[in-house]
């Protein structure tokens, strides 16, 4: 059977590939959405923090023999801690100012971090091996699916849904959402709002680092890996609706699929299709697909 001249089996393969890329978009845009939703900061350092995650995994393996699983657990905490430091020392000063200040600060930080890593490691990147358990591939009948990529989809879906659940369905999440609506009121109930905000930023950064570790075996570990991705991820967040958790997850996976299909039907446009969609969505629904007008 053929669909638009492409054998349906090949098409299934391409859709699956799209989902895999979508899982990275979803993980990264989720972190951005959480940070924007609760801190009102447009975190442009996100790409650099994703890159940091990959590098911590790479350096851990090279210098300390730290394996993939340990890296998966330790890296988000380490990189998250640097996020906490950034929030405590710098971002904290900016909450009362316009969004633009936070954006400029985080953008500048991203450039500095990337520049330092490029100076130290060059631009061509470092190899990171696929963990032993996930070596090889599954022949699904319609495509050759590397086991590692299957793991990426599953892991990112679990992390995304868990995050959504915590923020939208638990008491802790309720506090967080309340604190963004009216911080002084929540504080007067005896809840330490500044600490909650710090930890939220640390968590968002940790998510970026987690995505970085998951990406390391697929891409070269490279100082500019985040810079290339972050623009796309911002488009995903804008399409989903700034600050909407579910929006970030659904559009992340959805746009991965759309991009995957473009790669089959008109590959030349695959790097721009997401921005075309962004422009259309902004024209029709300025708050994004899942966002609400404030």
């Amino acid at each position, binding site marked *: 059977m053929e669909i638009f001249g492409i054998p349906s089996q*090949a098409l299934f*393969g391409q859709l699956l590939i799209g989902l895999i890329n979508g899982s990275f978009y979803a993980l990264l845009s989720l972190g951005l959405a959480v940070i924007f939703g609760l801190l009102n900061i447009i975190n442009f350092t996100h790409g650099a923090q994703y890159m940091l995650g990959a590098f911590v995994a790479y350096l851990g393996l090279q210098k300390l023999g730290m394996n993939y699983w340990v890296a998966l657990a330790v890296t988000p905490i380490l990189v998250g801690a640097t996020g906490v430091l950034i929030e405590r020392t710098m971002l904290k000063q900016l909450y009362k100012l316009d969004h633009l200040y936070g954006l400029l600060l985080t953008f500048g930080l991203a450039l500095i971090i990337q520049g330092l890593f490029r100076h130290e490691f*060059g*631009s061509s*990147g470092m190899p990171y091996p696929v963990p032993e358990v996930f070596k090889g*591939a599954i022949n699904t009948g319609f495509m050759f699916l590397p086991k590692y*990529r299957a793991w990426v989809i599953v892991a990112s879906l679990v992390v995304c849904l868990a995050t959504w659940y915590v923020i939208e369905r638990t008491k802790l999440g309720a506090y967080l959402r309340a604190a963004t609506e009216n911080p002084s009121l929540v504080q007067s109930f005896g809840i330490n709002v500044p600490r909650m905000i710090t930890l939220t930023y640390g968590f968002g950064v940790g998510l970026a680092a987690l995505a970085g570790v998951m990406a390391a075996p697929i*891409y070269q570990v490279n100082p500019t890996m985040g810079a290339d991705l972050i623009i796309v991820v911002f488009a995903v967040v804008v399409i989903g609706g700034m600050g909407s958790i579910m929006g970030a997850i659904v559009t992340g996976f959805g746009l991965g699929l759309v991009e995957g299909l473009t790669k089959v039907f008109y*590959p030349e446009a695959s*790097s721009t299709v997401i921005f075309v969609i962004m422009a259309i969505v902004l024209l029709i629904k300025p708050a994004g697909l899942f966002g609400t007008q404030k």
Partner: protein
Amino acid sequence: MKRKLLTIAAAAACAFGGAAQAQISDGTVKIGVLNDMSGLYSDITGPGSLLAARMAVEDYVKATGSKLKIEVIGADHQNKPDVGSNIARQWFDTDKVDMIADVPTSSVGLAVAAIAREKGKLHVNAGSATSDLTGKACNANTIHWAYDTYMLANGTGKAIVKNGGNTWFFLTADYAFGHALERDTEAVVTKNGGRVVGKVRTPFPTQDFSSFLLQAQASKAKIIGLANAGGDTTNSIKQAAEFGIVRGGQNLAGLLVFLPDVHSLGLNVAQGLMLTETFYWDLNDQTRAWSRRFASANNGKMPSMVQAGVYSSVLHYLKAVEAAKTDDGTKVAAKMKELPTDDPLFGKGIVRADGRKIHPAYLFEVKKPSESKGPYDYYKLAATIPANEAFRPLSESECPLVKK
């Protein structure tokens, strides 16, 4: 009064000093190294090329005792033709740059070549691959140094077709360079009895090649030709391993693979790859000596073919400036074509009428991890392609400078 006299004396001295080198504009030969200082080609070109240019100046002055005043500056074109063009114009118009060296990324290289002609200056390109620089886009103010797409196709492409790789699928970087490499390789493949069964144009740069690799897999072509470079090449080779392309019976042809790419991939992934270069640090005593000197000033990183090309081209440029007694772009270009070239890295050679620098090319195979003695011991020489066969013959040239 005394001070005034002194000033006049100083001014006179300057004026006479200037007169002694009247043909050198503003008394200084100024070389601008324009390349990718921060993006995916910065390990292949970047700060290393700037270092190579400076080494060439140092070595030239030391060897000849030349009195020329030479200055080398560098800038980042970010792989964007508009950024590169702006810098080139500013350098030529206001910063008194006489020659622009390196310039990787074919789209930028073509733009700078056109500006050099418009301004009557000189562009000696070592970084771009497109054979159009000495083909239909050639001009009297541009010389193309280290390698080009015709040479790559003629080396790697031909060797692979002769070994039985007769059906091809191309993954092509979607800009001037990729198109030129695909075109030149396709010509070699069909000429040697092979067939191209499909191609896909990938946006530049691309991180994830899996979708394109699946299309290549479905095409059942024996050879997947990678008409890309730098990070695009390493990512596509790495991901091809992940999708079991080679285990499935297909082979990859890296049409432009540089030493830093192999270093970045690691031998586990890169082993067995066939590739063509015109320079490798471990070719002979001279290349080894120079490369070790380069590496010690470059964070331990061995030079790429492009960086070696920048060194060699700047050296020959300075010889030509001295011989022509001017830094006028058009005249120096003519002198560079007139003088034979000779340097420790590429050996003896010539610059042809179309601006093509001619030297031998080498077909290498990447070593197995067990064969390598350590970092940068990566290549086995498979064949040497003599200088007169390595590049496009003048008889096939579309360059208007070539009289037929």
